[in-house]
Each structure stands twice: as structure tokens, then as C-alpha cells.
């Protein structure tokens, strides 16, 4: 990404931004609320005016964006429905079922989204994103509505399934960034700039109890606090 500008309705979110994301690895974005994380992700997904995605992406937005008239299973298979490739669609269905079972929705496959709780909806959206099977995966607060236990489980699931892909993930939880990110970057300022790469040691997903991680967490929080 080179010399990008992000301007929304005259509001300059980022100026002359150059940024590299490590291919095949997970980058976690942290930053104060309203700094521009979602805007950056949308820029990367090619959703802002005059932008192009770097390749096929899977995008998980901050809202769950489930279609209310499709069952949970059909929502997860939405990409395949939209691409209207029957063979791939059929091939993806068992995977979608398996994913839904893994996120704990195995018994709600045929329910409509409005009967789900907030966290269940988010899990369905997560399953949809993982089912997409893309080289670049962009996720905006993917675990925000989940309880601590489910969150850890799904972090493991995601880390496992996203191995080898280029992932950019926005999160508000420093520990989550430290568990999942090969690299962590902090956004700050207005228009925002992106801080230096923080690369915790070890393979992802890292153990949540690891003291090194907790020490880094304290440092990260300090950093965030300092920047505001």
C-alpha cells in the first residue's frame, strides 16, 4: 500500500499512508476508537472510492451483516451462492456445516438470523468469513461479542484455519492481538499514522497464560494510553 489517502465525506482519516502487510502472516491492528481502523480495512478491501483490493479478500465487517431471509447455513455459504458456481457450492457445504459446528451453531443450521443472540450472529459471520477460503482475510473486531471462553476457542480455530494466509485483523483486546498476531501495529493520531511493527516471539496462537505475553500486554496498553 503506497501513498494512500482516506477521506470520508471531507473528513481526512489518513494522508499519504504507506504500509506493508507481511504476506501469509497475521497483522493485528490496534488503536483508539474512531482512529480509522475500520476505514483502513475497508480501504484494503477495495470498498472505499478509488481503491482496489490487492486480490480476492474475505471481509468480516464490524456489523454481522447476516441476510435476514437466509438460514444460518445459507448465510455462511453466501459467497458461493453469489458466485453461482454449483460445483464449488456443493463442495463447500460440508465445510460450512463443519465450521458452524465448530463455532457452536451446529444445531441452528436452519434457523433464521433473527432468532440468534448477538454472539451467535457474530459466530455465524465468522463462519461465513472462514468458509470463504481466500488468500487475504480482513476481519473487523471478529470476537467482540463473545464471552472469554468462546473467544479463546474461536481464536484458536481462526488461527488454525487462517494459517498461511495474509490476515489483517482489527481488535480492541491487546491480549487477543498478542495471541494471534505475527505482527501488531498501533494506529494513532488524526489523520492517523501507523506505529512500528511489534512482533511477539513464538508461533501463533500463543498461550494466553504466557508471562512474556502479559508483559507485552502491559507495554501495549501503556503505548495506547501514551498515544491518546
Amino acid at each position, binding site marked *: 500500500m503506497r501513498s494512500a489517502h482516506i477521506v470520508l465525506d471531507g473528513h481526512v482519516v489518513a494522508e499519504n499512508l504507506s504500509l506493508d502487510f507481511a504476506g501469509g502472516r497475521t497483522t493485528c491492528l490496534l488503536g483508539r476508537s474512531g482512529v480509522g481502523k475500520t476505514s483502513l480495512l*475497508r480501504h484494503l*478491501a*477495495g*470498498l472505499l472510492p478509488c481503491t482496489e*483490493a490487492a486480490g*480476492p*479478500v*474475505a*471481509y468480516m*465487517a464490524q*456489523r*454481522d*451483516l*447476516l*441476510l*435476514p*431471509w437466509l438460514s444460518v447455513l445459507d448465510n455462511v455459504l*453466501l*459467497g458461493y*451462492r*453469489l*458466485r*453461482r458456481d454449483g460445483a464449488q457450492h456443493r463442495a463447500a457445504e460440508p465445510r460450512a456445516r463443519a465450521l458452524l459446528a465448530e463455532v457452536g451453531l451446529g444445531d441452528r443450521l436452519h434457523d*433464521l*438470523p*433473527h432468532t440468534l443472540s448477538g454472539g451467535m450472529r457474530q459466530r455465524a459471520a465468522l463462519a461465513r468469513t472462514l468458509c*470463504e477460503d481466500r488468500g487475504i482475510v480482513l476481519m473487523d473486531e471478529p470476537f467482540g461479542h463473545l464471552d472469554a471462553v468462546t473467544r479463546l476457542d474461536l481464536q484458536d480455530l481462526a488461527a488454525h484455519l487462517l494459517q498461511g494466509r495474509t490476515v489483517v485483523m482489527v481488535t480492541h483486546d491487546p491480549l487477543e492481538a498478542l495471541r494471534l498476531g505475527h505482527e501488531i501495529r498501533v494506529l494513532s493520531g488524526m489523520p492517523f499514522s501507523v506505529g512500528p511493527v511489534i512482533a511477539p516471539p513464538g508461533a501463533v496462537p500463543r498461550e494466553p497464560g504466557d508471562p512474556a505475553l502479559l508483559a507485552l500486554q502491559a507495554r501495549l496498553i501503556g503505548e495506547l494510553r501514551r498515544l491518546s
Partner: protein
Amino acid sequence: MRPLVTALGLIAAWEILVWLAGLPPYILPPPSRVGVVLVERFDLLIEQASWTAGEMFLGLVLGLVLGSALAVIFAASAAWRRWALPLVVVSQAIPVIAIAPLLVLWLGYGMASKVAMAALIIFFPVVSSLYDGLRRTDPGWLELARTMDASPRAVLLQIRLPAALPAFASGVRIAAAVAPIGAVIGEWVGASAGLGFLMTQSLARGQTPLAFAALTILCLLGLALYAAADRLARRLVPWHPHQGD
């Protein structure tokens, strides 16, 4: 039950109004007289009603099909939208008497010209509401679909169209309510049959009670059509319309 009570109340009010105001039958015949005519001329009325019902139904179906197709085309293609939308609006302002000879010329004296006329009136609410609905899709869904490499066609069929169904349902209701107007206007074109025709004729001949008998049947037809359309409209939106995001 309740509609029946309403209907009876209405009829009673009408009868009383006629009595109290001392209205002569050529201005407003009392329901009792209309009832008598309704029974006496039942065969005639049913025969004419079958024409009108046919026109209404075909006009509605044609109007729905054409209207939906046009709305979808407008939503899909900016070029069509630009060039043809004003045409559609103009088509609403054209009164039947001006184009009746043209329609007869092109479609003959049979039912076709009447159905065409009815469809012409009915299709606008459908186009307008469905097109409005198609324009109001949640942008979040559209963005999601873009990241999924959906073709514009797939987005239209699988996202914008289902999302527009509540608006379409509104349009179907209005179209069903407008259908009787369409059918009666349609009956001004071409040859002579139908309740609207019977009404004009009996009004011109001072047979006001017969005209009202025809009007009553027309009302019942309209109500039946509206009820059917309302049921259809409800079917279209089985999900809870607002927990979509």
C-alpha cells in the same frame, strides 16, 4: 366477522342517509333498491363481472410482471434508468380517451386492449415501489457482496431483490387497489362488456340502481383482489423485517 359488521353498518348508514336527506334514486339509490336489482339482474351482472374480473386479474398479473421487470431493469442499468424512467412517468399522464383508438388499432376490440390499458395503470405503483426498494439496500450488504466477487446480476437477484420485498409488497397492495380503476378505464377502450361499461350505460340511461348494483359487485371484486394481494404481500416477507443487521 368484523368486516361483516362494518359492511352491515355501512349499508345501514347509507339507507338512513338516503331517507333522511330524501335523496332521489338517480343521485343515490337506497341499498334496498340496489339489492332488488342485484337479485333481479343477477345473471347479467355475473356475466359482465366475469369480464371485468378477467381484465382486473390479467391486468394485475401483466402489470406485476412488467412492473417488476422494469424496476429490476432500472435498478440494473443506469442507461435504462436515464432514458426510460421519464417515459414511464409520462405513460401515467396519458388519458385513455386519447390512446383508445390507437389501442384498438393495435390490439383489436377484444379483451387484449382492455387488459393493456388496465396493466398500464397498474404497473406504475409496482415499478415505483420496487425500484425504490431496490435503491435502498443496506450498503453493508452490497459491500460484503463486492468482496465476494458477486456479479451485479447475482447481487441484484440474491441481495437487492429479497431486501426490496417489503417495498414490493407495499407496491403490490397499491396495485391491487388500483386494479379496479384500471379495469374500468380499460373498458372504455374497444368493444362493450364489463361492469364499468354496464355502469356508464345504466347511468346514461338513468338506471342508477343498476349502476350501483354493478358498483357493488365491482367493490366485492376489488376487495377480493386486495385480500389476495395482501396475503401474497405478507407471504413475501416472512422474516422479521428489521433485525437484518
